[in-house]
Each structure stands twice: as C-alpha cells, then as structure tokens.
C-alpha cells in the first residue's frame, strides 16, 4: 500500500564551500525531521565525504538519506547524481577527482569541512570543489547511469550553472531522469514556463546551503516505500508510482 512521501533530493553539507558550517550531518538530519521530510539526498559540489556521516546521523530517525553528489560538468552545468548505495557514489567520486583540477582557496570560496555524525571535524577537503570537472555533460550522464545512478539536471531555471542558462536549451538526446526546478519557481509554474519539456519528470528541491533553507521546497512522490528504487519508478512514472505536481 503506497502513500505520498516528501522528498528533498538536493541539499548540501558544510563540505560544499558555499554552504554554511552549520550544515553538519546531525544538524541537517534534525532540521529535515522537523520539516517533515521523509527522504533527503546529500549532494555536495563534486564531493561526497559527508554522505556516510549523514546516513549515520539519521540512523533511528526514520529519515531516509540517499547518497549523491552535485557534479559540475565541463560546460559548467550542475547535475545531481544519486545512487542506491555508497559504492556507486564512490566510483563516481573517483572519476570526478581524476578530472578535477585545482586546490581550494578558503578565503575566496569558503571552507570545505568533513564533519562526522558526532559533529567532529574529520578534516578539510583540499580539492577545488567549486571548479568544473573535465567531464562533458553527455559523458557525465552516461557515467552515472553506468554506475546505476540517476541524473537530475540541477535548477534548470537558474541562469547560472543550469542547463538552459549554460547551453541555451535542454539537449534533446540526453536521457536525464528528471529536471529540477528551483524552490522559487516550483513544479506547477515550471510546467507553464516550459511546455516543451513536458516529456521530462520535474522535481523541485531546496538546494539548501543553509539550515534555514532545508524546508523551503521538496517533491511529493507517491511510493510504496521511501527508497531509491521507488524513486526511480516514480520519476519514470512506472508501476503506479509517480511525482505529484
């Protein structure tokens, strides 16, 4: 017997340079529960070291945490990649670090803190996470799919780092699993603005970089249970699972 679940498939932690330091794992879990979220996906810029700690922090709360990453392609398009487990994410991470040049400058871009479930700093990420990888959009999508993940094009309505802003259009031959529209726009308004994109599943997420933003948007999905496999079905509108618009 299914029901509607509230899913926020794009939020950052303090590992992302532009996120506040209060976005540490236990704080994210606490606020997500307060906001009534059932499923969250952790998607830091080109990185994933805090995902395992958010999963641990969520243990016993009922909140489902999906491993993910917000990858920046060579064209500076942001893509949310989510996986069923940490293994798929780890493989993507290896490919990303292999194709990401540069060292972070904390003064220019912000601190990139790895923090565990007890709130202790494990270290700092030295990579230039705000940078673009050398992975093209098409290759990134193929890579995530080959690793069993799903690809959601981030905030397509935003001029910066969104598909339409960076490329001018949504490339028709790329098999995105969903397109994300920003919290400010919402799915129903997005459908009016982009009638040509009706063939794609739309989601909306908080893209939270600050604790206060965690509750600002989520996608309601009709699922049998709050899991990655169910979300895959809902995005594909398969077997009775679907995204509520």
């Amino acid at each position, binding site marked *: 017997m299914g029901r509607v679940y509230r899913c926020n498939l794009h939020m950052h932690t303090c590992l992302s340079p532009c996120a506040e330091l209060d976005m540490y794992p236990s704080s994210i879990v606490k606020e997500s529960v307060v906001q009534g979220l059932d499923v969250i996906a952790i998607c830091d810029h080109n990185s994933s070291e805090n995902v395992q700690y958010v999963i641990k922090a969520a243990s016993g709360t009922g909140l489902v945490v999906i491993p993910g990453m917000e990858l920046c392609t060579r*064209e*500076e398009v942001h893509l949310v990649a989510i996986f069923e487990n940490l293994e798929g994410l780890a493989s993507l991470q290896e490919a990303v670090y292999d194709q990401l040049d*540069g060292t972070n*400058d904390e003064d*220019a*871009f912000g601190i990139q803190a790895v923090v565990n479930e007890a709130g202790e700093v494990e270290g700092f990420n030295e990579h230039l996470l*705000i*940078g673009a990888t050398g992975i093209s959009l098409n290759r990134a999508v193929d890579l995530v799919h080959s690793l069993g993940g799903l690809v959601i094009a981030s905030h397509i309505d935003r*001029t*910066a780092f969104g598909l339409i802003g960076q490329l001018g259009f949504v490339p028709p031959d790329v098999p995105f699993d969903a397109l994300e529209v920003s919290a400010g726009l919402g799915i129903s308004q997005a459908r009016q603005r982009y009638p040509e994109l009706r063939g794609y599943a739309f989601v909306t997420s908080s893209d939270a970089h600050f604790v206060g933003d965690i509750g600002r948007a989520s996608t309601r999905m009709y699922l049998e249970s709050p899991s990655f496999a169910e979300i895959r079905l809902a995005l594909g509108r398969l077997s009775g699972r679907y995204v509520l618009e």
Partner: protein
Amino acid sequence: MMLETVSERLSLKCKCCWENLKREVTGGYAGDLLSDVMANSSAGNIWVTRQVHQNIVAVAALKEHAAIVIVQGATPEKETLDKATKEGIPILVADMGEFEVVGRLHRLLYPDQG
C-alpha cells in the same frame, strides 16, 4: 592604462568601488566559463563577461583582476555587488555586447596591434 580612462572611453557605468577606478590595467580577458577564467586570466586584467552571479567576484578576487565589466546591459545581482564592495573590485556595466566591448577594449589597450 588607468581603469578610469577605460571606463570613460567605453562609456561604462560603474556600479561599485568607484574609489578603485584609479588603478592600472595590465590587459583584458573575455570569458563566461569560470573554470576557463580561473585557468587563463592574469592579475590586473579587466574581465569581460556576461555572468552576473556572485561567484564572479570570488574568481576576480582570487585572480586579482582590476575590474569586472558586465556586458549587454545586464544587471549584476545584489549579492554580487555586496561581495564586490567587500573585496574592493569595481563592477562596470556596458550596454554593448561582449564582441563590441572586447574589440574596443583591445583597440584601446593595444592601439598598435591590427
């Protein structure tokens, strides 16, 4: 050449940090991919771009650009101006498109080149 002179000759509108217009310009860089600008521009450059989001200030600060020129009459975001003010980086806006701005800037800085 002085940034102030460039601004006058190209009819640019300064949106912040007017006090820093009296600085020397070493050259220019045109680009809208931040990764490209980070890799290839130099200190003292005027960076010409269509981007208006606040990340351009972080890049300009990192690379020690003389100023950012935003083209096509685009409006820099409020966060961009706030951040630029904090960093002391002048943001100038041109009504012209990027091609024209870059062409005229290049002629201004390098009048002997073809």
